[in-house]
């Protein structure tokens, strides 16, 4: 009897813990971050353009403004209360399916991102898959179907053009996106994102190999030489993530100046909001992926993780305060990258269509391919 009940408790906790992680991560972290990155987008773009931006919405019925932090909430209420209009000329099934198909893959990909080390003995990742990056590529490229379906089912010319552009944009960057990551995986010899971050925590971030075995003075010559292919991979990967998330300078499917609003021209209310949220969720996950692979994920720089661990005593168990520090480090890095995304958006003009294709097919594809061989060569020469 005792055995049975304890087994039941174990099973229940095995079910509950991932469920709690999913709910907390998605509803308490990702969705508020999406809402507030929209606010950040508006504020940062305003600052860059010498404006003020939304700075008034605070606590309702008071004069307390809080620098406009209430804006996302009022935006959300607006989206919920607006008329959800479905035009008569659309293909209803796909028209309704498309927003979900943009939002769901964007949220799904956060399952494998390690957003912290450990908290109370639990690994801070929803699904500790051994094929993390592959999973992300597989799921993230699904989101293009949402855009293509939206463009096609809207049955009007601007969304259609947006959809077409989106699909051909995808084929031109997705290859370099995948290939640019191969050198990174070669360097770590690992596909599990948690292990990749732990390795970077011990031996230096991929783009900052200054401590542990990665530092030159500790004999980390391989990491020193591998820094250059890693930097190339970083540039290609970041640029491709820009294209993947349909952000300027690659927002061709949306392209306000040419295509009204691109694929979501015919959408209104919450369906439009889903596209919007999907775009920003993809941006957050994309930043999270870049941070995880190139900038050490949740780890602190200069080997402070190890120092703090030894300060805490028990080398096996990560203390709760360090776990929280790790989570906040990860979120801080992601926020930094989101601001970088916004900063680039208001700096660069949109690429012409053929320029994007040329960049994807002629420059990045070859560069990524060459980068793999360079990395492999360096690894053979420097690692005994």
């Amino acid at each position, binding site marked *: 009897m005792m055995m049975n009940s304890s087994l039941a408790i174990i099973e229940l906790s095995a079910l509950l813990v991932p469920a709690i992680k999913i709910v907390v991560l998605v509803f308490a972290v990702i969705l508020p971050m999406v809402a507030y990155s929209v606010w950040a987008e508006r504020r940062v773009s305003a600052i*860059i353009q*010498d404006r*003020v931006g939304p700075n008034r919405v605070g606590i309702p019925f008071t004069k307390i403004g809080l620098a406009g932090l209430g804006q996302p909430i009022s935006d959300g209420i607006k989206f919920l209360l607006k008329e959800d209009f479905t035009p008569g000329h659309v293909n209803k099934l796909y028209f309704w399916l498309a927003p979900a198909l943009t939002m769901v893959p964007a949220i799904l990909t956060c399952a494998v991102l390690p957003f912290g080390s450990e908290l109370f003995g639990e690994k801070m990742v929803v699904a500790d898959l051994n094929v993390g990056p592959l999973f992300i590529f597989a799921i993230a490229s699904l989101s293009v179907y949402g855009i293509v379906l939206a463009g096609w089912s809207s049955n009007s010319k601007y969304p259609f053009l947006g959809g077409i552009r989106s699909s051909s944009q995808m084929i031109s960057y997705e290859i370099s996106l995948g290939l640019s990551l191969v050198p990174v995986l070669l360097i770590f010899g690992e596909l599990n994102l948690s292990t990749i971050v732990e390795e970077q925590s011990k031996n230096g971030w991929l783009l900052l190999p200054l401590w542990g075995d990665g530092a030159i003075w500790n004999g980390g010559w391989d990491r020193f030489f591998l820094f250059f292919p890693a930097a190339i991979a970083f540039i290609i990967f970041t640029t491709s993530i820009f294209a993947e998330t349909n952000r300027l300078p690659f927002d061709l499917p949306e392209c306000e100046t040419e295509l009204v609003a691109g694929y979501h021209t015919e959408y209104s209310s919450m369906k439009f909001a889903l596209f919007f949220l999907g775009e920003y969720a993809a941006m957050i996950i994309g930043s999270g992926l870049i941070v995880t692979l190139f900038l050490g994920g949740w780890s602190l720089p200069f080997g402070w993780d190890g120092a703090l661990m030894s300060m805490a005593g028990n080398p096996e168990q990560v203390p709760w305060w360090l776990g929280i520090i790790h989570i906040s480090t990860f979120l801080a890095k992601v926020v930094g990258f989101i601001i970088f995304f916004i900063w680039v958006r208001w*700096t*660069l003009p949109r690429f012409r269509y053929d320029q994007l294709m040329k960049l994807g097919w002629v420059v990045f594809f070859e560069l990524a391919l060459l980068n793999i061989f360079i990395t492999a060569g360096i690894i053979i020469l420097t690692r005994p």
Partner: protein
Amino acid sequence: MPIVVKRPRLTLAEKCYFPALMKGLRITMGHAIRILRRKKKVTMQYPEVKWDDNLPDYYRGAPALVTDEHDRERCVSCQLCEFICPPRAIKIVPEEIPPGDEWQKVEKRPEVFEIDMIRCIYCGMCEEVCPEQAIFLRKDYAITGVSREEMVHDKEKLYEIGGKREGLVNKWNELK
């Protein structure tokens, strides 16, 4: 004759786009920092800070009726403004000035003078056409209301906005 525009030859640095990107990022960051450090102030926080004192004399705000120095309403109900008004915002019902009135020689005055401020486009045609200089565009610009009726300015409201205006036309005064 078609003109062939020669494209400039780009150097390698220009071709690889990266220096230009960095330059652009520096410019936008410069703007952001200048705004954040409050070195530059562009936006005026409207309801708290207003620009009213700097409005130019030719500013075209809400049209209003004025009285002359004898408190006589200047409008003689000629209805020229009603006819010229492009959005047809003005409605006038003329009335004869009853005998015994001090200004009986003026003959007409408006019984009803309404300007629908929802329609008004602040073009100033009424002011331009008025032979009596009775209607002027004032500097009021924040005309608000919660119903359509509220947005129609009647005679009382128009005189309230307009007030007294002395000088100008002296046609009906004893001096002349």
